[in-house]
């Protein structure tokens, strides 16, 4: 599989999460990932894009979310960038801890980490947060 890149720019409204999910399904197949990997990657991208729109951009439709898919041959790298105020993943409690298990939210980052091999968040000098995720297959 040759290296290829796709870039998607989405408005910050929830309906656009489906657009990212459809794009990732197409890209994952063309990159050669198997069905199980594809499910996990799709889940991780949905969660990352939702976080970027809701928590990052606060659903401000003047702000966009950028999704970049890089097919690296034996791995898929995905970056999701928002234009928000910054994000510290350490501040998110473990949703599987008995004290948090009945909380209705806070599982998105846990699912991203569960399904991807590498995940990191970093602030960009120009503002906003990027989450970079890698899945090997």
């Amino acid at each position, binding site marked *: 599989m040759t290296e290829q890149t796709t870039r998607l720019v989405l408005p910050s409204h929830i309906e656009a999460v489906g657009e990212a999910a459809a794009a990732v399904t197409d890209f994952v197949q063309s990159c050669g990932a198997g069905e199980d990997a594809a499910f996990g990657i799709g889940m991780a991208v949905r969660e990352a894009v*939702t976080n970027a729109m809701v928590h990052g951009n606060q659903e401000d439709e003047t702000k966009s979310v950028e999704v970049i898919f890089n097919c690296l041959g034996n791995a898929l790298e995905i970056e999701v960038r928002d234009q928000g105020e910054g994000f510290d993943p350490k501040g998110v409690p473990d949703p599987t801890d008995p004290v948090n298990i009945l909380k209705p939210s806070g599982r998105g980052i846990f699912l991203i980490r569960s399904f991807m091999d590498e995940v990191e968040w970093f602030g960009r000098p120009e503002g906003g947060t990027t989450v970079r995720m890698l899945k090997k297959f």
Partner: protein
Amino acid sequence: MAELNIRERQAGDITVLDMDGRITIGEGSVALRSAVRRLLEEGKKNILLNLAGVGYIDSSGIGELVSSYTAINKEGGQLKLLSLTQKLRDLLTITKLLTVFDAYETESEALTSFK
């Protein structure tokens, strides 16, 4: 077509919601929340969610299942799950929510468990 279609039927004092579609952020999660709230308002507190037709759920949908569970418990009722797909079972396993929810393979087994 709606993201999540919900059909309601009654089995004694247990309300079964047959769900078909996706429980994801936005329409799907809202549809589940609305259905459970309406049942609670009608005094229907024993609810079985048949998830056989739910092919996809995200963290928002999982959160809505948890919210439904706590809302029903608060009213003295019970929420149970029926016919989880393998993917949904895997998600509830890794989030440790299978330790919270009662989940059944067959409807007769699920209905009996309410007694």
